[in-house]
């Protein structure tokens, strides 16, 4: 269509009807609207009536309906996973024995990393080395507020009044508090993650005896 003088080539523009409009030399063709353009335009309008009717007056799910289904499905997924992980661990409670059983289960502990990242790493760092001026180091043998392993879920639940530790009651489920407490216990004595360059929090508090179920 390079040669505009040759009417046999493709859609030669001069076949179109020109209107009698001319503005500063600009003319306008009187071409009809492209059919597909009209079709999609009307189609989108017609579709909108159905969509609006279906989701506003009709049976379509509202976004809160969808949300509630998602939340329910997620809770089931979590329950099922927890049941499987905890099934071999007997009674799950805040007792020393139960916490130690969980802390010794490598699979369960591995799965706690995600929760730690969301809730705890912000003050205790991703690998639990603590944060200068903030969360204590979880890797050494020194503890400020913990005397036995059973103190951990209590502190996670209630926080330390007047101090930086957040009470997680309401933010985590009871079961999550127990598993994350076991995870905290399992960090004791573990190695630092070399990819993190933040300073390691100095030892604070007393050295306490190793975890025991007694």
């Amino acid at each position, binding site marked *: 269509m390079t040669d505009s003088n040759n009417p046999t080539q493709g859609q030669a523009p001069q076949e179109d009807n*020109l209107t009698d409009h001319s503005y*500063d030399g600009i003319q306008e063709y009187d071409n009809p609207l492209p059919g597909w353009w009209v079709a999609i335009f009307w189609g989108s309008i017609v579709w909108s009536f159905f969509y609006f009717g279906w989701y506003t007056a009709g049976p379509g799910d509202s976004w809160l309906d969808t949300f509630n289904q998602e939340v329910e499905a997620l809770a089931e997924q*979590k329950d099922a996973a927890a049941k499987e992980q905890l099934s071999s661990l007997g009674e799950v409670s805040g007792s020393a024995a139960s916490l130690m059983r969980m802390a010794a289960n490598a699979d369960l502990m591995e799965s706690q990393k995600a*929760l730690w990242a*969301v809730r705890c790493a912000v*003050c205790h760092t991703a690998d639990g080395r603590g944060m200068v*001026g903030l969360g204590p180091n979880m890797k050494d043998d020194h503890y400020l507020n913990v005397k036995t392993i059973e103190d951990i879920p209590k502190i996670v639940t209630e926080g330390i009044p007047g*101090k*930086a530790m957040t009470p997680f009651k309401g933010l985590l489920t009871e079961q999550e508090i127990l598993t994350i407490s076991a995870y905290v216990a399992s960090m004791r004595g573990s190695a630092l993650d070399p990819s993190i360059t933040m300073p390691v929090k100095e030892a604070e508090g007393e050295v306490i005896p190793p975890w025991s179920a007694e």
Partner: protein
Amino acid sequence: MNTATTTAVGDLVPQMERFSYDDGIVRKFLFASVIWGLVGMLVGLIAALQLAAPVFNSLGLEGNWTQIFSFGRLRPLHTNAVIFAFAGNGIFAAVYYSSQRLLKTRMFSDKLSKLHFWGWQAIIVSAAVTLPLGLTQGKEYAELEWPIDIAITLIWVVFAINFFGTLAVRRERHIYVALWFYIATIVAIAVLHIFNNIWVIAGPFKSYSVYAGAQDAFMQWWYGHNAVAFFLTTPFLGLMYYFLPKAAGRPVFSYKLSILHFWSLVFIYIWAGPHHLHYTAIPEWASTLGMLFSVILWMPSWGGMLNGLLTLRGAWDRVAKDPVLKFFVVGITFYGMSTFEGPLLSIKAVNGLSHYTDWTIAHVHAGALGWVGYMVFGMAYWLIPRLFQTKGMANAKWVEWHFWLSTIGILIYIVAIYIAGLTQGLMWRSFTPEGALEYGDFMETVTVLIPMYWIRVVGGTLYLLGTVLCLMNMVKTWKQRPTVYDEPVYEAPALAKTNPTNYVTAPSFKPTLSKWTVGFLVAGLACLGLYLTGDEATPEKSRMYLFFALSFIGLGVMMGMGKTINYFAGMKWHRRWEGRPIGFTIWVAVAVVTASLFEIVPTFAIESNVKSIEAVKPLTPLELYGRDIYVAEGCYNCHSQMVRPLHFETERFGDYSKAGEFVYDHPFQWGSRRIGPDLARVGVRLTSASWHVRHMIDPRATSETSIMPSYGHLAEEALPYDVIPSRVGALKLLGVYDQNDYMQAAENAKVQAAEVLKRILAEDKGMVFLEDTKMLAMVAYLLRLGTDTAGLGAELHNLESGN
């Protein structure tokens, strides 16, 4: 300048008038556009560097004044400069050049033209000073504080008088499509600017939006979306309709298409605003409407693209050779791409993924760099030789370089940022098989983007280099100008006093009822009857009847309208309108205002849209001042305060946000992008006061890879207790506080500041240096966020579902 001469022939020949065009004003606006464009893009490049490496937040400088360069303050400067200075001046150059010629008259008043130009530049300079100083309303693209808002209104009125005055003294009976788009721009921007900027004044450069929370969000995105429509779309379509056929020497493809896409664009655009608020605490029906109108908008937008590209039929061989046409073709292609992507992004499910991510950033840059930028540059290269009366551009090669540098620049930019957006969106919603968030540490979803941010810097730099070439070329061409510009004198007959009546009369309009119309209406009414007489025991069935009733009646009305549209397609009625610009303008205003009222009024009128929550109380005076700092620092540029009802979001940030939680928020701070995590419930999640202090002073001290700017200056600047009563006083006018609150504001703030300091010291006794500093207000505010409704969980949900 308009000398009338009578010809010897006398009455038979209409009286000829002589006139010349004012091109001096066009030269000014064009220079301003390119120079400010360079500034705006440079600020954008700095902002891009800041996201890639936070050291750029102080530009590597030392001192407690470098916060003027921090991202939260520069990003609004970038957006405002590009929209209102680069695009704005470009639009004015187009309007002033083309309107005179399309109307065969000089501008109405040279004085008003000059006042418009210098006034607008003064506004831009004041924006460039106040935004880095943290003087902002905290609403996107409407950041400028109240004195500048007033100045904008006045200068816009000057522009309007000048433009409509020019229409009044025109010598061309009918107004061309480019002018329709200019009219729409002037009318709609006036309405948008005024109604989104209604505030109470709290100080020389401090005000609070009269709207709060969900309603403020609604107003803001009615404005924000339509600023895109009427500042970045309609005037550029007007530009296209003049400069493209001029440059191509081809008639416009379809007059009918011009009419249809113009009116549908003007009417439908307005409704689409709520697509910026999907899944937020607005009524879902409003969001649904926003989505549907956005989808319907697809074809009206493409009408402009078609009329642009199809005008080039028969001229395609020239596109490869003529750089002006090349810029236009790429610009229009980006327009087509962006206006397809816009409806796509407005679909709720897509938006659930894209919202708060870089996807939006990529989308707007395809529009701004591709469409807006290329239309301005295409016009510039066509205009410059004509304005400076030279043989051509001083350096034709640089034009080629500009084209290729910037085209590659755009592609690099948007591809990288699309990848960044998708990556982050997908990471946010990823769960482990155990049902935990796979990337629980928010920072993981940020650090992964850094390489993409560096690539963006490369793309942005290329685009900027192109603009530098453009400016250099422009200056070089300007130097070749004649000593005195030739000012040709034109002749045209004056417009007859009366509008001619010889329009071919359209077939008279008789609303006809086809079989289909009647059929659908009858079916619809039948369903309505079934719904009304339905059994309350089966609400599901009853809702189905309502659904079919609404759909059938809607279709019936549509079918009836189909006939009407046929009548409209005759278009002779429109030709008559084109001869009557005042009537035309009124109809544009009616379209804009009607659509706005339909959209906005229900959310304000229906009380049940915002269910109040008793536990939600206004902030204390100290927290309010902390919020003012949050606004001033532009925290909303990176942090949202709006948890959407999506399970991956509530898992991360806590319960989803309810409209009732924001009833005292003047302005709302929901945000539009999450470069950092959501803060709606940060006071529940992060209860350590000293953590916030450390994090504000040095974000890297608490999050190793954080890209947040440092806010150490808050720990050094004194907290101005005496300013706080004026803030409380202003919000008292809006009913947030009472007289008692106002009287005790300063004292109350002092007491709370001491308490906050005590709390910080209990955690870390080394922080005594914070006494009476702004940091205390900031921390007080952050610790308050989300705490009012903490623990209300189930109770809130019942409220929300109406139980």
